[in-house]
Each structure stands twice: as structure tokens, then as C-alpha cells.
């Protein structure tokens, strides 16, 4: 099916789902069908035995099925971490690929329990769409990629340029905002499918391609000759990415928030998938012992097993390991996503006590 039709059908289907869902469970608790988002998502996931996680339809490094059809990627690992915390089994996740257009309705209507899908935390999404963002696991920003032969050094020189951009995200708006703010004239070419966009860019229909820098790196890495393309140093927007849940899912949101902090804290403490067993047995630091569940009751306070973090680190590694395994191969540096203890790093976890 044609991509637009697919999006429209999907969006219509979701809209119909929203329409068909029975009124609030509070009014009809006995007959709430699966279509209505449950009042307590955490209990619903437990009862179902699997987590339903909305991910990207396919973006190298973040969410992409491998040759065996197993989903791999940075965002995918965050879904798996939740499954480990709840069931101690990284495979009890059903991944639902969502396009930029249908992702929000999919979460709103209860089709997925959570989104872990390169989604930017913005004011309006947090307030008027009925979502709660649970943290920032990737600090991104929108940039430009141009052909090296064009001789462009920075984005300001793109005055008058034609720029390819994919619709359905805030990318288009950022581009327009940036151009207005800098009194620069740009001409957009808005093509729906990523592949067609890249083809138009490669054919010279556009002088530049714009999306989040992480996406540019992923695209540049698979070009026939990556060195012919430059990612300009200018970053024109802030794109803090992170998982999100429905508004009102406080306990589920707490779990997601502290899984991310736990992964960051583990990196800070130097606990990796290799040495977690050893640390559990003999690390003398009290906070590490609480994090790994040897002492204290942190897991139970979240409503999961006390060994939740130890299990996650054993299965997936700490934040740094997850980053390197998934995003290292596409050429992304840690940059702002380094720990706060590194120069320029922003990843910081509140204390585990």
C-alpha cells in the first residue's frame, strides 16, 4: 500500500479505535475491553505477560530488525529493560513499529503501553496531548547534511538553498523557525518516504538534507561514499529524546524514569554487564548495593523485584554499553550524552536512596 494511504488508514484505524473504545473504565469497570487504555497500565502489562512497546519503523541504531527478525537498537533496549524489570525476561516484549504520524494516537488509544521511539520532549506534547515524558535518554539536535563538493562551511551559507525534509515531525517547523530567525530564504521539498528523500538529495534536487544529527549520521553511514557528505557543525534545535507514557500512569512512569537513571548511575559507578555479578557480591559502596538490590527495598518501592537493576545490567549493560553497542556502529559520538562527569556531558542521575 502507498505510504500515505498506510498512514491515513493507520491514523483512521486508531481514530476509530478511540471512537469504539468504551467510555471510561470508571463508568463501566466490568466490561472494559482491550481497546480502552486500562486505568493502571502496570497491572495490565503484568496480567497480559508482555509489554507492548511502540518503536520506530526502522532507523539504524535506534530500532531495526536484524537478519533474524529480532529487533535491535538503542530505543529497543529501553523496552527490553522494562521487560526485564517486570518479568526478568528481555523477550517478553511485543514491538509495534509506529510511523511519526500514528505514534501519538497509538499511545493515546492504548494500542501500545509506551513509546520508545526517537520522540522529542516538547511542551505541547507533554501538556495538550496527554503524555508524560519519563526522561531524556538521548540529547539530539537538528542539523544539515550537504555534499562536500558544494563547499558550504556552515548553515548560514544555505541562504536560497533548496532543502529536503521529511514531513510528520517537528523537523519541518524547526527548519522554518530557523530560517525566519536568521532571515534566510529556504525552499523546502517535503517528501514522505525517507528513501525517496535521500534519492532526491542524491540526485541534486536539494542542496541539503535536514533531520536530527543522529539520523544524519545513520544516513551518512550508509551512503556509497560517506566522505562525499558533510554534516554541518550548526545544530538548529534541541531535540531531547526519551520514552513516554500516557498521562496518569505515574507508577509506570516512575519505573521508566528510574530504569534510565539506574543505567546512567551504573555507568557512573563503573558497573558493567561483565562485572555486575562481582559487584553484587563484593562492592562495598552502599549506593551500589542499594542499586543492585542487595540491601534496601528500592525495587519493591517501584513495584518490581529488588534485583531489577542487577538483572537489567546483566542482560543489557549500563547506559554507556547500550550506547556503544547500538550507536557506535553508525558513527555517533557520546558528545552531550556523555556522563556529567565528562566535559560537555549532560547525562546525570539523581541519587539512589
Amino acid at each position, binding site marked *: 500500500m*502507498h*505510504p*500515505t494511504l498506510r*498512514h*491515513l488508514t493507520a*491514523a*483512521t484505524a*486508531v*481514530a476509530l479505535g*478511540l*471512537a*469504539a*473504545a*468504551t*467510555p*471510561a473504565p470508571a463508568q463501566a469497570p466490568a466490561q472494559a475491553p482491550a481497546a*480502552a*487504555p486500562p486505568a493502571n497500565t502496570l497491572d495490565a502489562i503484568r496480567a497480559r505477560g508482555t509489554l507492548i512497546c511502540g518503536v520506530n519503523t526502522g532507523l539504524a541504531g535506534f530500532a531495526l530488525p536484524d537478519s533474524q527478525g529480532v529487533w535491535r537498537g538503542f530505543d529497543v533496549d529501553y523496552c527490553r529493560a522494562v521487560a526485564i524489570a517486570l518479568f526478568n525476561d528481555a523477550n517478553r516484549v511485543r514491538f509495534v513499529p509506529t510511523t*511519526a*504520524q*500514528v505514534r*501519538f*494516537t497509538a499511545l*493515546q*488509544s492504548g494500542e501500545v503501553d509506551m513509546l520508545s521511539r526517537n520522540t522529542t520532549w516538547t511542551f*505541547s*506534547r507533554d501538556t*495538550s*496531548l*496527554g503524555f508524560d515524558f519519563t526522561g531524556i535518554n538521548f540529547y539530539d539536535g537538528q542539523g544539515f547534511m550537504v555534499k562536500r563538493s558544494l563547499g558550504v562551511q556552515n548553515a548560514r551559507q544555505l541562504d*536560497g*538553498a*533548496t532543502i*529536503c525534509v521529511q*514531513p*510528520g*515531525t*517537528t523537523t519541518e*517547523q524547526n*527548519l*522554518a*523557525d530557523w*530560517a*525566519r530567525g536568521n532571515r534566510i530564504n529556504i*525552499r*523546502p*521539498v*517535503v*517528501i*514522505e518516504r525517507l528513501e*525517496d528523500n535521500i*534519492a*532526491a538529495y542524491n*540526485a*541534486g*534536487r536539494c*542542496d541539503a538534507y535536514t533531520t536530527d544529527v543522529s539520523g544524519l549520521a545513520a544516513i551518512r553511514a550508509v551512503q556509497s561514499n560517506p566522505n562525499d557528505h558533510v554534516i554541518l557543525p550548526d545544530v538548529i534545535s534541541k531535540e531531547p529524546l526519551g520514552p513516554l507514557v*500516557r*498521562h*496518569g500512569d505515574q507508577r509506570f512512569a516512575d519505573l521508566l524514569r528510574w530504569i534510565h537513571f539506574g543505567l546512567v548511575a551504573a555507568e557512573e559507578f563503573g558497573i558493567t554487564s561483565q562485572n555486575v555479578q562481582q559487584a553484587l557480591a563484593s562492592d562495598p559502596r552502599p549506593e551500589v548495593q542499594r542499586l543492585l538490590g542487595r540491601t534496601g527495598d528500592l525495587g519493591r518501592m517501584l513495584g518490581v523485584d529488588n534485583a531489577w537493576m542487577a538483572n537489567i545490567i546483566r542482560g543489557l549493560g549500563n547506559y554507556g554499553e547500550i550506547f556503544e553497542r547500538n550507536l557506535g556502529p553508525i558513527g555517533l559520538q557520546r558528545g552531550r550524552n556523555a556522563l556529567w562527569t565528562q566535559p560537555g556531558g549532560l547525562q546525570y542521575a539523581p541519587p539512589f536512596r
Partner: protein
Amino acid sequence: MSSASDDPRHARPAPRRSFRLSWADERVRNLVWQVLVVGLVGGFVYWLWSNTAHNLEVRRIATGFDFLGREAGLPIAESLIPYDPSMTYLRALTVGVLNTLKVALAGIVLATILGTFLGIARLSRNWLVAKLAYWYVEIVRDLPLLLQLLFWYALLQGLPGPRQALNPIEGVYLSNRGLKLPFIEWEPAHSWALVAVALGLLATLFYRRAMRARQMRDGVPRRVWPFALLAMIGAPVGVWWAMGAPFTPDVPVLRGFNFRGGVDLSPEFFALLLGLTLYTAGFIAEIVRAGILAVHQGQWEAAQALGLPRGKVLSLVVLPQALRVIIPPMTSQFLNITKNSSLAVAIGYQDIVSIANTTLNQTGQAIEGIAIIMLVYLSISLSISLFMNWYNAKIALVER
């Protein structure tokens, strides 16, 4: 001769039975079923509506069309009316509707002209012409439209870049950024001249009608073209001259990345128009051929017996009768062009679907966004249908 009383159907009016509240009474049965069906459909619609509203409210999702008044902030490459990202969503969506109308109307006109020629060519006595038209129709009809659009778009992208643009004549540039043509600086005088052209066209139509009426009376044919020339060209030029005859050429020049000045035809618009026209012309050709073949052979022979040449037979005798058969299926093709123009998103032409999609993504109001898209297509399609039905009734065979 025949009067109502002779017609057996009117001989004896059916007795008016009294209304009985019984299942045996047909009228009671009809009433019950109709009320039941209308009630069920209405109830279902109400249930959908109220449930959606309720669920949206419970999930704290913003609803309503307030967002239309907010700043859109989305960039649009081509627009028939002035637009910049600081304008509202309503304005952006209007630009989208106009872009859809632009490509749909141009497509309808071009596909009709091309399709009619192809349909006539299919019936040509020239073997080569007939076979070429035959293969054109077969190939174009059998390939998915989306594929054809992507093909034309890829082909247009294969043109050289703006710095190596083809420059057949001074001021005309063809590159992968589209076709650039010189134009004039638009001033009010030009708008008034256009108004004069429209009035001239109207006047010419009335004049022709009056002349035809006179010809019907005395049989003397009268020339219309001198009047048409005067009304549609002389008068507008006069208006333009009277307003100071402004004329400043606006020639495109290459500056920086792209051309400045002049008017352009973007590759996206061109690929979409080309794809829609060539694809639909294939179907229209078959409709026209069917319409011509539906006219009885005797009509051809009778017209030829009057000594009319083949071209006149076609235009004066056969085509007017074929139109009766052609118009109803043609309406469907016009609707198809309009709806197929929504494939524009695939090749980056910003029509209503493209802009509404971005809008619903930026505002998160999917239901409203899709409702707007449906409303726009429904309005355009119903307008085309109404017009074509009116035209169909006008040209239908007047039966006695």
C-alpha cells in the same frame, strides 16, 4: 388522440384503503422498517461520536478546531496566495486546498484533451496511429499510478543541476529545480486586463448565441471571430494601455544556489501533473472510443450522404451524440484525478494531504486533521459531480 381515460393504467385508480395498524398493512411494515434502520444508523453514529468525545476528554487530549487560528510555522514551497510560516494553520490548509485544486483542474483539462485525441486515434483508419494509441492505452492503464509518478519524478531529477541548467532560449532555464520562465512584474493593470478577458469571453458567448439564433431564422451563417478578437484581445489591451501600459520584464538569473525572479514550474508539480494526465488520459481514451462506437453507423452514413467531410461528420454529428454516453463515466475519471492527486505526498508536492498531515502531527489532533482532509475531498468531488450532472442533463437526449 390519447387521453388519460384511454390509458389502461389510469382506467381505474387504486382504491384508497383505510390505514390499519396491523402487520398485514404494507405501509405499516414499511414505516417500521424505515424507522428501525434510520434509528440504528443514527444511534451508531451518535454512539461513535459521543464515545470519541468522551474518550478524548478522559485522556486529556485537546479537541476542537481552535488550532486553526494558531501560527502554523510550517514551510510551504509553492503557493498561489501569499504565505509565510508566521501565518495560521487555516491559511496553510487553504494553500494546500488551492494546490490540490490547481493540479486537479489542470489535470482534468489536459487529460480530457489528450484522452479525446487518443480515443479518436484508436479508431483511426491509419494503422500506425491506431496501433500507437492502442499500445499507449494498454501500457498506461496497466501500471500503478504511484509507480508512474515516481518514474516521472526520478526522470525530472535526472536533469542537470541549476548551475549547468539547459538554456534553450534567453531567460528560460530547465534544471532539476524545475522550469524557470521569464515573467513580468505583476501590477493592478494586469489584473484588470485579465478581468477584461473574462468579460470578453462572456460577451463572445452571448454574441455567438444571438448570431446562431439569427442563422436559424434566415439561414445565413455569420462570422463570430471578428467580434471575439475585439472582445477578448482588443478590449483587454485597451484596458492595459489606458492604465499606463506597465511592462517590466522579470527574467530569472542564477544567484547562489538557485534562480531568482521569473516564474517556475517545480519538478514536483510537473511530475504529478504529467503522471495524472498521462494515466487518466488512457482511461478517457477508452471512454471516448466507446462513446463514438455507441453512435449508430447509420448516423455516419447519413452525414456522409449529405456530403460532409469526415472531420465535420465527427464534430457536428457523431461527437454531440457520443457525449451522452461519454459524460457519466467521464465524471468518475474527473473524480479519480482529484482523489489520485493525494498521491502527491510521495513526490513532495504540498497538497492538502501533505499539509494536513504535517498539521495533525504538529498539533497532535489526528481526528480533526483527517476530518478536514475528508471534508475537502468530499466538497471538491461533490462540486464536480453536481456540475457534471447538470451538464449531463443539459446534453441528454431530449425525449418526446
